[in-house]
């Protein structure tokens, strides 16, 4: 019976192919809009969280000041703070103190102003930043503050083009520095700055030759596993407070940032936006459903005689009800199916245009499809019931 109704529905749709297409256009657009919005939204969320975790997962960053910004008035950190944090060996995988300063770099006739980062070998571990070529610093270079440096890919391109820089000497501000390696490319940060636009040298070198003090701007800490993060965060707070001799009634003049929290905050925003856009798109799906109801009502009126014939020769109310209900479900499901196809195209296109990864989300595809099919049931019920309740004698007489 269901199969027969299905065949009948296909026939009825074929009979009015163009009108059927226009009828389901609303559903096609609705389904495509919902899926596209959600897919691109998820891509954007993924891209944000990817960028942040590229900086290092399970990472804490200790920075001066309470508020965002430079924290210029708050004191920087000292080597002593770093050493004490390193004592938490059980839970800490690496501690990388680092300071940055802007400086002009020169190689032969080319010069380029970049960010100089002074740090230790843990930096590459903590920041998940492997080398492309060359080697890390030797312990002796770190201890003595030797003039050795690693180039970010942007600086390498600016100064050396496609040539191999390892072993060459570049000039950094007023001293000569030996290139011992090149960092792999890391791309843009979440905030849009080019992370590869930097050169890395031992902290001591930077302090002696460029900043002229013993301050440390930031301390990056890599925690062994994510469940230890809160523990290490708390311990770090206490260590730095103690080292700074902050009285109990005084607030922290520094912060220990958990990268996970930053990820959550930023992805939270994009998630809400995604939901909002999806909800707006869902309204268009609803409008598509009303379109189906409209056409089904027209179709029932048009086919009153046919319904009369069917009822006269032995169709029960339920047969007529199923016939029209299935017709509207087939229509809306067809719309849903075409919507899925359209959505796949639009999502890929949109993701490419917006530079976010395309992530096929099976769940939203299934939800949108089921939703479109249920729209057929909901909005097809009224017309189908009207058809089934027709009196055969009235339906047969209908002109």
């Amino acid at each position, binding site marked *: 019976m269901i199969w027969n109704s299905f065949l009948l529905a296909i026939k009825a749709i074929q009979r009015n192919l163009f009108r059927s297409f226009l009828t389901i256009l609303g559903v096609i657009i609705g389904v495509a809009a919902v899926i596209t919005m959600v897919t691109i939204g998820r891509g954007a969320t993924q891209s944000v969280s990817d960028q942040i975790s590229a900086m290092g997962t399970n990472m804490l960053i200790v920075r001066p000041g309470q508020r965002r910004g430079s924290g210029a008035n708050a004191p920087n950190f000292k080597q002593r703070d770093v050493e004490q944090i390193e004592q938490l060996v059980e839970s800490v995988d690496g501690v990388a103190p680092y300071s940055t300063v802007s400086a002009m770099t020169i190689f032969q006739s080319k010069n380029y102003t970049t960010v100089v980062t002074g740090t230790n070998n843990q930096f590459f571990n903590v920041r998940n930043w492997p080398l492309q070529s060359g080697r890390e610093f030797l312990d002796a270079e770190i201890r003595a503050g030797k003039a050795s440096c690693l180039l970010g890919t942007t600086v390498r391109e600016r100064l050396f083009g496609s040539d191999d820089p390892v072993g060459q000497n570049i000039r950094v501000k007023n001293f000569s520095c030996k290139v011992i390696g090149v960092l792999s490319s890391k791309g843009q940060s979440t905030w849009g700055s080019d992370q590869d636009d930097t050169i890395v040298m031992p902290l001591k070198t930077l302090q002696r030759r460029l900043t002229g003090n013993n301050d440390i701007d930031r301390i990056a800490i890599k925690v062994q596993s994510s469940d230890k993060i809160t523990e290490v965060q708390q311990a770090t707070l206490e260590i730095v407070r103690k080292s700074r001799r902050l009285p109990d009634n005084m607030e922290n003049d520094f912060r220990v940032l958990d990268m996970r929290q930053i990820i959550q905050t930023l992805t939270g925003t994009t998630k809400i936006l995604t939901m909002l856009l999806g909800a707006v798109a869902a309204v268009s799906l609803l409008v598509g459903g009303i379109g189906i109801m409209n056409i089904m009502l027209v179709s029932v009126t048009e086919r009153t005689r*046919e319904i*009369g014939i*069917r*009822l*006269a*020769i*032995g169709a*029960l109310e339920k047969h007529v009800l199923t016939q029209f209900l299935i017709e509207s479900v087939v229509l809306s499901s067809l719309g849903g199916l075409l919507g899925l196809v359209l959505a796949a195209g639009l999502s890929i296109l949109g993701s490419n245009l917006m530079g976010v990864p395309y992530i096929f989300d099976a769940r939203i595809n299934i939800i949108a499809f089921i939703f479109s099919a249920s729209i057929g049931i909901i909005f097809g019920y009224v017309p189908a019931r009207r058809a089934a309740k027709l009196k055969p004698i009235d339906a*047969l007489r209908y002109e």
Partner: protein
Amino acid sequence: MALIELKNLTKTYGSGDHLFQALKGINLNINDGEFVALMGPSGSGKSTTMNITACLDTPTSGSYLFKDVAVESLSNRQRTLLRRNYLGFIFQGFNLLSRTSARENVELPLIYRGDTPKSRRIAAEKALEKVGLLNWKNNHPNQLSGGQQQRVAIARAIVTEPSVLLADEPTGNLDSKNSKDIMSLLTNLNQDLGITVVMVTHETEMAEYASRIVHFLDGSIQANEVIDS
């Protein structure tokens, strides 16, 4: 024993001041195997009687016994089942489904009966053979003449092997040659297969194919005329 027994049947249309009494107490018995023609001018009540007999309409009062079962006590569903199992319909306007082949049209009642596609096809082709249209089984109604369309409709009516064939002005839309063909087909079905035929017509010529003519006038039966063949 009468197959169809109509007792004191009345039917009133409209309400208030616009009452129209279509039937004013009809008593009519139709026996198994009869070929009955209901005749009369329009508005005389013959079609209303037919529709009530066909279980497509309900009387205002009176009783209708079909095989001794009181039809007015049946539910909608039971009435549909009665139509499906015992009655076949032929309409003046053929009422075939357009853009549907002759065979599929004939199969339609069997679909609702729940027959398998194979047995449907066999039964439909047998019925089309009886009306002489087996070679036209794949044609759509708009590719058939009026007489052929009516014959497809007859095939659809007899495919369920009903006890009664109800024909509402079956020749009303046909020329005289086609009309004669349809009437001799109905006569054959009545005589060879023993199907009871009840036919509404206003043409005397067609009514004379029947074994009995019931004359209607102003909602009442005027006369019963038995024809000797």
